[in-house]
């Protein structure tokens, strides 16, 4: 891994920490997906990965490449932008579908549709 | 070198198809005019190509696409064999065009562009000298064939098409596996370079090479419809609309072409002791099995189009077996048989299509031959000889035309004189005896004769059922253009009987050329550009 040797130690340690933090958050988020008891709870969990998890990893990447290339590189920011725009769409559509299913099944855990809905 | 004659048969149909798409389906006349022009020019091009390569000696024309050296870029190679196949495809397409104009093309969308794409795929497969490019052109022609097979939709077509596509998708996977293994072992995709490298493949990877070749072979054998890989064929062909099925008569021949080309080029005598004649036994015995299966199927076929489909199987099997023998003279005969059987089966599909059509464009069923069993039983009870039945046997002109065409097809398929089917079989069978006491040769020889006999039985039964027992059942409304297609195809067969010598000489030279591939290799890879 020759190119990483070009990183100064401070950057290497910073990148290492950021990478680990990002991975850890994504890990915890997915753990939640496994651990939480029902769908509505689970749906919150992956957000950890899409927000802070991604943020740390992007930061690591930006640091790493900016230092390596000796110029600021913000390419990765786009990932964050795109992810922020797209994740809500999926989750909103998905939760709505779950709510529909539960209402159809007459589940007591979900609010029934208001009179006109 | 810029002999653009070689690329033209591929690019022209593509160009025409693209234009047809841009013109749009609504402007039917323009689309048609484009198709006709394309097919006519293609035939001329193919003829010119054939003349060019048949000049003198073993001339092979090489076209380096993108001007990259042959070893690295994609080359097109025209030799006698590929020129022959291109001509066959073009002639077939041109001959079928009038038929398709009749009524069939309106049964679904984009018939004409699909036909052009099919031609592009066929010509590409015949001309390419690159293994992966061959895969691509196979996919082009298969995709077009899916489109054409499904043309007009309908339950029968779709369920047969489903099988056809599933089987061919599986075959394509095998094709890719085989090509990549061969590439992995040799590091090249150029066929001539492969031929050059195969004798020098290190022993530790030769098994891989063989595995690749074997898997590739299975892929081609699926296209060739070798037993037990060809169960898809009769149904698919029977379900396709007649003009399409007729064009498909050439499709199995593409598999045959490739097997012939690759087995002789890559695994010919020059491939070294470990690899020469690799797989030829499989082809021989596979061919034998296919002939048997096709014959049995033909005898049991219950409708006319299926009968034709099983005839395709028989011809495939015959060709496979003949290739498997790996004798130049047999190959020459097999090529003659290939040409004749393609034309004959195409004509037969057209006849079957006209017989099944009752003027109503929406019914697309093949003509059923169901009440077979009544034959022979009917007269059993009423004494040996009934009164001479002098009731009027006047026959309408369309039925007479179809009857004569049917009879001609039967003769061609069974290999009976006076049409060229007999000559083709003779040209193939006679040299088989020169193979010496080889069990395979003897079995194949016998089977071809027996299959011819069974064809007589089946065709006779079908013909009697259709034309003699219940001619009331068929009300063909034959248009002049439709009969023109049949006439062209059968006329070609007749012409090939009368003027047999020149074509057969060409085929003998072709066989000699592909059996001694050194010249091919040398011309594709001239010493000057040996290494970059």
């Amino acid at each position, binding site marked *: 891994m020759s190119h990483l040797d070009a990183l100064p130690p401070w950057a290497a340690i910073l990148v290492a920490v950021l990478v680990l933090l990002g991975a850890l958050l994504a890990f915890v988020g997915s753990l939640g997906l496994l651990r939480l008891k029902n769908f509505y709870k689970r749906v919150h969990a992956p957000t950890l990965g899409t927000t802070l998890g991604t943020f740390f990893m992007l930061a690591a990447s930006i640091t790493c490449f900016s230092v390596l290339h000796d110029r600021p590189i913000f390419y990765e920011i786009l990932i964050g932008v795109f992810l922020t725009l797209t994740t809500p769409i999926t989750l909103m559509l998905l939760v709505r579908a779950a709510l529909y299913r539960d209402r159809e099944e007459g589940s007591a855990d979900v609010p029934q549709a208001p009179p006109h809905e | 070198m810029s002999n653009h004659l070689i690329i033209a048969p591929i690019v022209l149909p593509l*160009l025409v198809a693209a234009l047809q798409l841009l013109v749009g389906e609504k402007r039917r006349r323009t689309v048609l005019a484009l198709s006709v022009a394309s097919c006519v020019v293609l035939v001329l091009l193919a003829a010119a190509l054939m003349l060019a390569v048949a000049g003198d000696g073993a001339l092979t024309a090489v076209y380096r696409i993108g001007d990259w050296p042959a070893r690295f870029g994609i080359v097109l190679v025209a030799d006698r064999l590929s020129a022959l196949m291109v001509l066959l495809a073009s002639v077939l397409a041109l001959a079928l065009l009038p038929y398709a104009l009749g009524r069939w093309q309106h049964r679904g969308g984009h018939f004409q562009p699909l036909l052009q794409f099919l031609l592009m795929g066929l010509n590409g497969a015949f001309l390419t000298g690159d293994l992966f490019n061959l895969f691509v052109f196979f996919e082009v022609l298969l*995709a077009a064939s899916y489109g054409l097979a499904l043309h007009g939709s309908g339950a029968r077509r779709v369920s047969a098409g489903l099988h056809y596509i599933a089987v061919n998708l599986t075959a394509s996977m095998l094709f890719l596996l085989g090509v990549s293994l061969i590439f992995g072992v040799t590091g090249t995709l150029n066929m001539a370079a492969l031929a050059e490298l195969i004798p020098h493949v290190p022993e530790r990877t030769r098994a891989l090479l063989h595995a690749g070749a*074997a898997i590739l072979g299975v892929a081609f054998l699926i296209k060739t419809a070798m037993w037990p890989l060809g169960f898809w064929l009769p149904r698919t062909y029977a379900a396709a609309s007649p003009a399409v099925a007729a064009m498909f008569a050439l499709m199995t021949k593409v598999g045959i072409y490739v097997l012939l080309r690759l087995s002789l080029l890559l695994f010919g005598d020059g491939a070294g002791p470990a690899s020469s004649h690799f797989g030829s036994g499989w082809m021989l015995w596979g061919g034998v099995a296919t002939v048997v299966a096709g014959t049995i199927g033909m005898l049991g076929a219950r409708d006319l189009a299926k009968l034709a489909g099983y005839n395709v199987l028989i011809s495939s099997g015959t060709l496979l077996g003949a290739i498997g023998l790996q004798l130049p003279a047999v190959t020459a005969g097999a090529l003659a048989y290939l040409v004749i059987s393609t034309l004959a089966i195409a004509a037969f599909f057209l006849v079957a299509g006209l017989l099944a059509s009752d003027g109503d464009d929406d019914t697309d069923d093949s003509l059923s031959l169901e009440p077979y069993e009544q034959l022979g039983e009917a*007269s059993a009870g009423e004494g040996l000889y009934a009164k001479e039945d002098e009731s009027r046997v006047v026959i309408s002109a369309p039925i007479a035309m179809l009857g004569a065409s049917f009879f001609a097809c039967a003769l061609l398929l069974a290999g009976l004189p006076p049409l060229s089917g007999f000559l083709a079989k003779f040209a193939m069978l006679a040299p088989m005896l020169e193979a010496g006491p080889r069990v395979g040769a003897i079995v194949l020889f016998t089977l071809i004769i027996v299959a011819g006999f069974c064809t007589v039985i089946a065709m006779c039964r079908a013909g009697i059922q259709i034309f003699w027992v219940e001619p009331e059942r068929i009300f063909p409304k034959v248009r002049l253009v439709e009969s023109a297609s049949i006439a062209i195809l059968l006329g070609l067969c007749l012409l090939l009987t009368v003027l047999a010598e020149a074509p057969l000489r060409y085929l003998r030279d072709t066989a000699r050329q592909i059996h001694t591939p050194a010249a091919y290799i040398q011309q594709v890879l001239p010493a000057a550009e040996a290494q970059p």
Partner: protein
Amino acid sequence: MPDNALPSAIICLPFVASVVVFLLRGRGRSHNLAAWLMTATALLGLLLSLWLYPAIAAGNVLRQVIPWVPGLGLDLVLRVDGFSWLFMLLICGIGTLVGLYARYYMSPDDPLARFFALLLAFMGSMLGIVMSGNVIQLVFFWEMTSLFSFLLIGYWHRGPPARDGARMALIVTSGGGLCLFAGVLLLGHVVGSYDLDVILAAGDMVRAHALYTPTLLLILLGAFTKSAQFPFHFWLPQAMSAPTPVSAYLHSATMVKAGVFLLVRFWPVLGGTDQWFWIVGGVGLVTLILGAYSAMFEQDLKGVLAYSTISHLGLITMLVGLGSALGVVAAIFHIVNHATFKASLFMAAGAVDHEAGTRDLRKLGGLRRFMPVTATLALIAGAAMAGVPLLNGFLSKEMFFAETLATRQGPLLDMISVVIAVAASAFGVTYSIRFVRGVFFGRVPASLPREPHEPPLWMRFPIGFLALACLLVGMLPARVIGPSLRAAASSVLGAGQLPDYSLAVWHGVTTPLLMSIFAFVAGCLLYVRLRGYVAGREVAPLTGRLSGKRIFERVLAVLAADIPRWIERRYPSRRLQSQLLWIVLLALLAGGLAATSAPFGFHPRWSSVDPAFALLWLLGAACAIGAASQAKFHRLAALVLTGGAGLVSCVSFVWLSAPDLAATQLLVEVVTTILILLGMRWLPKRIEGLAPESRMHRFRRRRDGLIAIVVGLGVASLAYAAMMHPVADSISRFFLERAYTEGGGRNVVNVILVDFRGFDTLGEISVLAIVALTVFGLLRRFRPAAESINVPLQQRRQVVPDAGEASRAVDHSLTDYLMIPGLIIQLMFPVILLFGLHLFLRGHDLPGGGFVAGITVAVGLILLYMARGARWVEAHLRVLPVRWIGAGLLLAVSTGLASLAFGRPFLTSYFRYAELPVLGKLPLASAVLFDLGVFSVVVGATVLLLIALAHQSLRRPRQLADAPAAAGGQG
């Protein structure tokens, strides 16, 4: 005209006439003309043949070679010697008479042009057989006679007997013809030439060759089937459904003689061995007696004649089989004699049928009172058939008796052959009497179908002419037939080999004469004894039950219908699963055998395993196996899991330094998922546990599981072996070295795609285009299953609240549901387009390219469709995917063609860096234009695929109006 050109004139004549006659069809009352043309042609042929007499009599062999396919040793060799000349006379002579006869016999209502055209063509083919100087050519014409015989027998195809008879004749004779073909090929192989003269000169060599026996058997099969020899004799009586002129011409005088012609012709080559003696002699003997025996019990006039013909053909065969030169002479003699009297008898029978309206012997009698001339002529011919002295039949029969007496094969066999010869002769007398007496003498039956008259003069003329010939030959044999017979026999046997024989009416009191007398008396007695017995019988005793026809039909039905159908029922090959199973098994077998044919190094290297990568593929494997197990009942789960597996392989591509692949794989997967989801709406519900699982299904699953595991192992080991032995010097080197300098791009993969191997890409986009068109065409006629026609349940339910509320639009809930996501997607649309363009423009240097860009744009569009609905999108944007496809293809091809203008091959790339103001250094590569074509096709095709599918729901009338009711009913 020189003699050497005459043979070709003689053989061409009938064919030309046939075509002319055929073209007459439909021209009013042309049938007179057709008949006269036939007669005149045959007569002309006869005259031309007679012209050859001097040359033939001099013992010459005329040869005329017309080049045809010299490369295959196949030329048209017309060869006329005495034997073939005799046959030519027979063919043309009887042809003339039959033409004349048919003119009056056939009804003008029938399409006679066809009839005479066929008859003429047959005549030509028959001439072709006898004049062939090349054995392949002989087979050629041989098969043609079978075909014309088939068409002529089936001439009145409305009646089942005609059809069955024609079919049987064709199958038997053409089958025999194919055997003959094989035999002749063997013969040619043994001799080294197909030329008849060469073959005739190579008799010793052939007889000594290892292939002698198969050759002999195959050729004999041809001869026996054609000449209706036991056990193939049954087709001939069936062929009697043909019009009588055909029976007279083909089935007594000429075509059936082709078999014995062949025996005689090849006698010098194949004859004289034990095999020949036993097979030919034996078959002839059995046929002789069987035919004669059956003829006695036949009730149909033509049937009697047919069995009689079989018997006489057996006689000739036996003569050839006995193996002596004298036998051959007798055989030739009898060929001619039989043709004469049998043709005239057939014509007489036809005249009777024509006049009396029936051929049933039980219904006929006393006709001599109405047609005395015919009766007299029939009497003469019948007497010839019975072998009465002073008629030609007597002479050849005497020779036959002499031959049977001359055989020396042991006392018992000699006895048997003599006894059978006499018996058959006696039977011949019996049926001849039956024929003549039964028709012309005795009481006139109470009711004849028609009032009989003497037939017209020109119908009687041929009968009379032939009867006269019987008389002349019978009384003046040496004068009338002697020279011709000598010429024929010597051409077969060789000039010096002719045995001593005398063609005299009286040889004194010899054993053969005594045998004849005995046979005659016995025959008369037998007739008297059997008369009453036969009258009431339908079939012959003993043999009647064992009808050859019925056996043939049974065998044919079993072989050609029952067995194939049984196989099809038993092993239904049309099931896709079994087809795919075969493919998998065969590929496994082929690959396995080939891979194990040579040893290859296989050493697992555990050290190189990256734990993270291993973990990654643990997940991939879980996804794949999960998808496999869920695909039946939980489609969505399977789809999601497949997506997982795809994602894992996408990550692997990145891991292994292939970003282009990762991007492409990812995008394709997204599109595929959407596509499958679009389709899932039309699939039926599957509910687990509804149908009980049988043991069979469990077995299949386990079997397939085992196969799948073996396949997996095989593919894995191949992949591993290939990875462990990468080739040292692949062509990739070249691409890496030249991509930048000559291809103008840093992304080697993309340079390969658009430049080095741009031709592949051209094919690839064609595939996309074709598939899109096909899908488009297929979906135009799409018809969903009844159960999925309805709007999905969800939509029917979700519309309920809106429907109850006046203030809310019909799809208010839907609008709310998609409001925010739709807006975001709408905002992202230009961003996605921008990203697509970015991917496109950088593709040549960095991962990306036309394909990825195209799919990106297509996904953007599809997102819009999902968020806003098809109607909305199409109201705002004009999407013309087919045009995109066409334009893209055109652009790609044109780019390729542009290089032609510069004298370079197709798709030669051009690139340079252009220095532009402001913009700076810009790469200008023709490959980019090509890639733009790719882009356009990909956008068009992908969008067309998805939209065509999506439109299916739109095409159905929306049933939201009655949805509440339906939903209420279900809720």
